[in-house]
């Protein structure tokens, strides 16, 4: 049905990053996108028009992840310099730097109210930082992981994080429980389904696994791509009908959510596809790659 509408044609290429692009993210309404990479910059783009809007430079090392508040006013980013930067989008200045991670920070996310930044670090911890106060101390440190935390997702009431120790852990703030789903394989990236009921975990055995969040049941496995050593994103399409993810050979894969068949796969980049981000409403996708480009895909 919707497989015909999968974004398979390249709409534009966003060039500007020098070196690998490590993450590319749509903003909340999908109008803009942010990218960050090895050149220590964060870039703001209009992917639909292929425009580069702004560059944010302050990181001392590679920037591994970036996230923007729903109101597009603030950014948070993290990277190899062990800090979480809290930016003002308009001025491009760093409002605050949250220091505390003992090593590289892999992922960062705002909560819904943009009041807390949660960062996931190589130091096996999740840290929550308060944006409201002027304190630069973490308001919470979660260090139950036994290996590097690769990815973090926030829902309204939960913090979900995937770690190389093979677990996807859900920290339910509301009930004060930690639920650990052990997948047995290092988890590279996690992504919430749009209905919030499932979590898609990209494992390093070249498999995407879809988990039911309430029961912890493995719903489906998606195979075919290569994901063995890189931190690569995966996500569900905006309709939750398909699962998409990059491959280390530069391919993009689309799987049917239910029967896990590869609906489509095509070569998108010349090198590892580090990041994929699906438009929240439209059939549009951006992919970022080690080859330094961000490509916008439309049906």
């Amino acid at each position, binding site marked *: 049905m919707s497989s015909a509408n999968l974004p398979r044609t390249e709409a534009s290429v966003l060039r500007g990053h020098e070196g690998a692009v490590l993450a590319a993210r749509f903003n909340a309404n999908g109008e803009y996108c942010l990218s960050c990479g090895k050149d220590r910059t964060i870039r703001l783009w209009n992917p639909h028009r292929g425009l580069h809007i702004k560059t944010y430079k302050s990181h001392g090392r590679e920037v591994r992840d970036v996230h923007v508040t729903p109101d597009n006013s603030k950014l948070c980013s993290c990277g190899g310099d062990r800090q979480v930067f809290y930016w003002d989008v308009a001025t491009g200045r760093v409002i605050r730097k949250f220091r505390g991670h003992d090593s590289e920070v892999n992922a960062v996310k705002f*909560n*819904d*109210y943009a*009041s*807390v930044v949660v960062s996931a670090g190589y130091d096996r911890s999740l840290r*929550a930082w*308060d944006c*409201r106060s002027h304190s630069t101390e973490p*308001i*919470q440190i*979660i260090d*139950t992981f036994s290996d590097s935390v690769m990815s973090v997702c926030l829902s*309204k*009431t939960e913090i979900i994080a995937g770690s190389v120790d093979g677990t*996807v852990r859900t*920290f*339910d*703030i*509301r*009930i*004060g*429980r*930690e*639920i*650990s*789903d*052990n*997948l*047995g*394989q290092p988890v590279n990236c996690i992504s919430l389904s749009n209905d919030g009921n499932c979590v898609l975990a990209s494992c390093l055995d070249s498999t995407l*696994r879809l*988990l039911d969040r309430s*029961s*912890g*049941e*493995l719903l489906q496995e998606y195979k075919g791509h290569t994901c063995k050593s890189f931190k690569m994103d995966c996500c569900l399409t905006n309709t939750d009908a398909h699962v998409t993810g990059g491959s280390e050979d530069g391919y993009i894969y689309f799987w049917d959510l239910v029967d896990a068949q590869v609906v489509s796969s095509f070569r998108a980049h010349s090198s590892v596809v580090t990041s994929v981000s699906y438009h929240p409403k439209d059939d549009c996708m951006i992919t970022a790659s080690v080859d330094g480009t961000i490509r916008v895909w439309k049906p």
Partner: protein
Amino acid sequence: MSSDDEDFVFYGTPIEREDEITTRKKKAISGASGQLRTVLPPWKQEVTDEEGRRRFHGAFTGGFSAGYYNSVGSKEGWTPQSFTSSRKSRAEVKQQSIYNFLDEDEKAEFEGRSLGTSMQFDTFGFTAAELARKQAEKEQQKGFVFLSNLFTISSSFAGSMPSTIPGPVPDELIVPATESIGVKLLLKMGWRQGRSIKDSNRNSLSDARRQARKAFLALSDNVGRDIAHSKLDEEDTGNVPDLPADDDNQLSKSMPEINLCYFVLERKRLKMSGKREMEGCSSLSIKGKIGPGFGIGALEDLDAEDEDVYDSGYDFQDTYVQEIEEPSRTSTDTLRILDAKKHDVLPGFKVASHSDRILDRRDRFDPPEIPKDFVPHHKFLAPLGNEGERAETPPAEVPAPEDNNLKVLIEGVAALVARCGKLFEDLSKEKNQSNPLFDFLRGGNGSDFYARKLWEERQKHGEQTKLWEGKKPQNSEQLTAERRGKILGEKALERSSRDSSSFIASASSVNVNLNFQIHSLNLHQLMSNRILENLLMMTLESKKRFEQFLKEKYEGGLRTKDSGGSSNMSEAARARERLEFEAAAEAIQKGNSGKERKATSQLLSDLSATAALQFTTGGVEIGKVPQDDELITKAMYPRREEFQWRPAPILCKRFDLIDPYMGKPPPAPRVRSKMDSLIFMPDSIKTAIVEDHVSMEHKSSLVPQMDKGKIGQEATENEVQNEVEVENVGRPVDLYKAIFSDDSDDEENTTSDQVEDTQKKIEAANTTLNRLIAGDFLESLGKELGLMVPPEMPLPENKGVQKEKVNVDKGNSDSLSTEIMSATRNVVGSSTNGGITKKTDMRVDGIEERYMNTHKTRNNSSSEDERSRKQSRSHRRKSSSSDSDTSNDSKDYRDRHRSKSRRKDKGSSREKSSSRRHSKHRKHRRKDSPSRSHHSSGKEHEYRKRKKSAQMKLYCLVLTVFRLMLCSVSVFHLHGRNPSSLSGCLWLVRRWWLMLFLDKILGRYFEFEFNTTDCFLFSLDSLKFSLYSLVTFFLEPSLPGTDAFLRCKQSTDRFSSSSSSF
């Protein structure tokens, strides 16, 4: 000079310093030029450095000299490198090498050994090679035997050589080296350009040996010469030119130590060549009168063998008696032994020639018997079909049968058999016994064509199937399980021959048959499927494992733990294999799933099935059984676990959620302070932590608000510290309640109707005040005056006493004796500290007070005890005034003390400015007696030390003045009014009235006292504050209205603290 010389008579031999120096220089020069000095006896030798200086002196003449003027190796010595790095000029990363840490001589030693590239080394450099060749030729012409260069070049020896130019070598002969020394050496050793080094080396070595032997012969007699010659003949390669006879003579004339070298060399060689030679030679060596223990020759390499040069490895005494003829006999013996053994020895092997190996047999086993027909050449069993086949004569070319179907079938089967092995043929033969189409397998129609085809196929796939086909049963030499079974008379398993397998196999064969008939497909193309290829590449055992894997996978059944994989496989290999199997099985499954649609895939699956059929039943059921393997992993993962996790309250707040743990104690109670643990601990443990408690309390006592809060908390028992804090913040009203609410009458303030407190409250107020007085006042005043306020550190001994005391209090024990003891100890301590009787007196006073305190504590209510437990040390050490208020039974002590102190006060007021020293003392007194006896003892000590400072004096003066002033204030203020009006005073205070009032007084007193002093430098505010403090402890509690004033003080405290924020 000469005349002087004539006059003197000399005794003894003069010390020839000059001479010595010159010889040393000479020696150094000769050493530097590389010439070998004449060997001196060791006691005459001396060690010099490279500049010719002596290295070792006598112990009294400088000892060991080393390095740079006896310091370190360089002028700068051990000066550390200064690290400089800037953004512009980065510090370069220094590559350290071992040479940085070596001394010169070590370096020289090291360089000889190390390998390095030489700038002068030109591999293809023609000029250098040419030059070398020329030089070599030149040297040859000169008759320079390499020996002369190789041996330690003693000048005498060199002189004895038949060199054309006698004496030192002229300069024109010394050509700068154009090639490396290694090349030179090689050249001199006989190596020429274009020759391999190894051979020449060996030649040169044997040359050296020959030379040595000859030199040896020169020394030895005829018999020895014979033996040596025989030896020479034995191992002579024949192309060695003999040296001229006169050479021998010359050698014999040369220095004996060179012969020693020869000898050692010889011995080394002998050691290598065995017992026989050793014996012969050793007998010879005795004749040379040379024992073991002489030096190593220059020719000898540093080998492991050389390590025992000084070892008495050979018993020379034993060999001494041996006859000369013996060696030859033994040699023949050994030869005979060798010959005898010869038939045992395999060609290409040698019997160990080492004597000890041969002789020492008792702990060695005999070599295994070699079978007669054993051919020691390994013949590779033709493992490959094509190799095996190649040896055979290929079957004759046969025309294909007319029947096209048959032809296709034959071709197909041949290809299959070529791929899958002979067993397939057997199998199909077996299965198709009744099938006339397969007659060719049984030698019927088309059998020769089949044979030919089979051969062809094998030729074709020889390479491809090498790996696994090698173990296939085409080779007669190899055993399959089946064959072995047959040989051993085993019966084949029933199942494999019967039920499903036969059916499947026949079915598959039929399928194959059908497919062949339907599609004349090229099997090669089919086989090009990669997975199947992999499958076919499998080795025999892995095939077996695969078969088992399939069986288990699809047929179910009990799984053994390590079903797949042999025991000698590593875990990783097993896993990899398993993955491969999975892939293969999947491929098979896929093929099967598409059976209906695609005949080709059908064929594929069948092929794979038949491939597997060689050993097992294939799988018709393939793919129908659920993959329990994956199920297991699925069952294992994902695994869900749940833990308790406590979100931070602020996180909940930020997420706009209610903290699930709100109000609950923390899951893992982190001990915020030692207070917490203290409170819930039994008494016995408590005492241990009391000190911390006390110190904490003391710290907190610096915060006036908290103290006030505590005053409000008096009634409650065992309250938690943090609770106190909370309530401090929350309820400032309690203070006033504590002060004003209770209306129980006081015996002293009967007239007052509303401002009466209970004992407890007064106590609390007093203690707070005292603390404030003690700590804050002094501190603030001291700060204001620019004095260094000594830290609140009690003297160690006092502290100990306090601790003890605290313990007593805490334990609610009435061990008065301990208290007294501690008090006396305190006295002793203080007296030793100060050594002044006055002070001791004071101390006693303080002890008295404390004694009273404990007394009171003992006798009073438990609430007091509770309080004291809670409160700090300074709480306990209340002022005497407060004590006298509360403790009735100690009234007499108190009174006495009070009167004493008051008397002193009066005295001081009388002679206030006259005796400064006295006043100071009184100040101390004052300070000590009420509250801080212990602290101030330490402080006092310090003050005493600094009493000469003007500031100190001023401080004391001001204090005195304050006190006097307050005296009058108290009189004026309290005696003249009734307490009710005093309580109204609170309002005044709160509205700056009292403040202003006191300001006025202050100002007056200051005017009166010092008009031009620096006292006004400090702010009036702080003065006021200190004034209040002073007032409180200055006033005697017996005075009417004191309590009220104290209350007044309380509020002013608050006030002043609040006013500071104005």
